[in-house]
């Protein structure tokens, strides 16, 4: 098992390096000249060239990538002398649009995204798995119809629509909530939760739908397994049977997908953050696209990719714990 975890970790690190290289090269290949984007319309060639040298864009791509990686480990100083800007490690670049270190931008928006993601994840797993199990156990009855109906609606509605609808209903028609404005959890936990209720619910409704179906089908499938029947024949209580035999087996594949979905969310819930005006990674990325803020774009992409790779590794290790048959592999 230890070997399995070790091997998986090494693989994850290698994968991350590859992803970072691809991302960096890909964005450098964009036709827009990053140096030209550093100053406004009234720019002279000298300024552009000066900025090019200062930000390191005059060097070959691979050397740039090397500097970038070095910056992540050691921190990086842009430009010489008085005008130099230092970004401490891990330095993910310097945004010439915002005149800030990218790492600072990301570390400011990441807590927001994590707040959104964790809450939504908990809510959607409870909702999705709960309704799925209920639907499977009450197969063919009204509970099943309600759960399946909910799932169809959730899958059909796009996120932005659900989000806008939620805002309309809960802040305009039936004003129980103010329009969300984000407050840090440490500043005021009550306000924090109140601002996030709508984004959480929106994401939960949209994402839980898939989980209702997956759980329902998984549970129904496992219920017909021979080992469940044998458990029953042993005299195991039905409630114990459902948790220990059925859920245990049905949740293994769900954990895999849930891990990846959660990671994707951590990379930025772009639409939800935009609609609810939450200053998270997703919103940062969108603004970076609009502004052609290349360093921020590279960094947000990398962060999102890192979460996915990390989640993949965690899921694989979890899988080993959950399913004894995978351990040897």
């Amino acid at each position: 098992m230890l070997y399995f975890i070790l091997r998986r970790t090494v693989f994850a690190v290698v994968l991350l390096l590859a992803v970072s290289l691809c991302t960096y090269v890909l964005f450098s290949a964009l036709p827009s000249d990053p140096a030209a984007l550093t100053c406004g319309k009234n720019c002279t060639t000298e300024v552009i060239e000066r900025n090019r040298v200062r930000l390191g864009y005059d060097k070959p791509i691979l050397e740039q990538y090397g500097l970038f990686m070095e910056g992540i480990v050691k921190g990086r100083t842009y430009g010489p002398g008085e005008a130099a800007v230092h970004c401490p490690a891990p330095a993910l670049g310097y945004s010439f649009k915002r005149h800030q270190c990218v790492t600072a931008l990301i570390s400011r928006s990441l807590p927001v995204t994590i707040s959104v993601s964790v809450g939504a994840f908990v809510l959607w797993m409870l909702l999705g798995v709960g309704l799925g199990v209920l639907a499977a156990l009450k197969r063919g009855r009204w509970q099943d119809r309600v759960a399946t109906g909910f799932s169809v609606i959730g899958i059909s509605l796009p996120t932005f629509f659900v989000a806008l609808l939620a805002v309309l209903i809960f802040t305009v028609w039936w004003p129980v909530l103010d329009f969300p404005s984000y407050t840090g959890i440490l500043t005021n936990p009550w306000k924090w939760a109140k601002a996030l209720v709508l984004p959480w619910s929106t994401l939960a409704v949209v994402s839980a739908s898939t989980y209702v179906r997956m759980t329902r089908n998984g549970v129904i499938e496992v219920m017909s397994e021979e080992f469940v029947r044998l458990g029953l024949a042993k005299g195991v209580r039905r409630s114990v049977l459902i948790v220990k035999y059925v859920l245990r087996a049905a949740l293994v594949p769900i954990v895999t997908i849930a891990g990846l979905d959660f990671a994707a969310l951590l990379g930025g819930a772009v639409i939800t953050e935009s609609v609810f005006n939450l200053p998270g990674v997703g919103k940062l990325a969108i603004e970076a696209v609009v502004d052609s803020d290349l360093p921020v774009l590279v960094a947000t992409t990398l962060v999102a990719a890192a979460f996915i790779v990390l989640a993949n590794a965690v899921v694989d290790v979890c899988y080993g714990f959950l399913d004894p048959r995978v351990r040897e592999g």
Partner: protein
Amino acid sequence: MTDTPLLRVRDLCVSFRTPDGVVRAVDSVSFDVHAGETVGIVGESGSGKSVTANALMRLNSGAQMSTTGSILLDGVDLGSLSEEEVRLRRGRDIAMVFQDPLSALNPFYSVGDQVAEAYRVHHPKARRPEVRDVVVESLGRVGIPEPVKRMYSFPHEFSGGMRQRIVIAMALVNSPRLLIADEPTTALDVTVQAQILELIQRIQQESGTAVLLITHDLGVIAETTERVIVMYGGRVVEEASVESVFEQPTHPYTLGLLGSVRSLDSAGRGSLRAIPGSPPSLIHLPAGCAFRPRCRFELGEGSLCGSSVPTLSVVGRGKSACHLDVAERERLITAVDG
């Protein structure tokens, strides 16, 4: 053998409602199993063997299912008990071994845990060391080598035969009075089959557990059982001691079954004789005798065979359900053999 049987089944009917119609999987089945006895139920697929077995433990499920008749275990009608009372009897009084040991064990728990669970369900107050001893002992009894070490292994780390042994260990951990083995050897290699049958027999002799062995394999029946119940189309067509069934079958279907088995010492019987046709659909059972369309001795149009369902009647040392009269049956059967 005592006078009151351990298990008394009377007029057991199990039917399922399907979109195509009602399936009478088991129809008016009656039989007894006495304490310590080994009884075989034999028949083709779809003859109602497994449904009968599951009905004995009230394991058939589904809203579309209905069960009538009585199943008396020690004089108590299982049908009249609550779900909880039945649960307490499952695994304690009646235990079950399934056909496919590959899928019958829970892949997520070690085999020791699973045997322990079977014990704990009926001994909720048992302490850890006691349960451990019971697990080691019962795994050792069914021939798992190094049970102390192997109890921590998972099902996928065992071969098919070993897994079936574990299932048997699990079934026997509470010393049940009746063991229902539903095709326990069908999914196994021939050599392993013999070992498992030997194990079941040995345990039956050691512990005095009655065994109800369900199979489609007459060889298995001949080796292990004392009494045989032959099922066809959801009904019992013949019931007799194993000797008389093999030497003097009194139902054309049993004769057909025997004819379709290759046996070394039956040189005089010629080659394999398959029963023509295929088992009937349980939704559209033929009128009268269910076996009539495939029967070589059918009495012809307008006879009883086509109009009424034969009932079990005493013939020689056993019972069979056929419209041919006894003397006629014996004559025809000998004629075919010769």
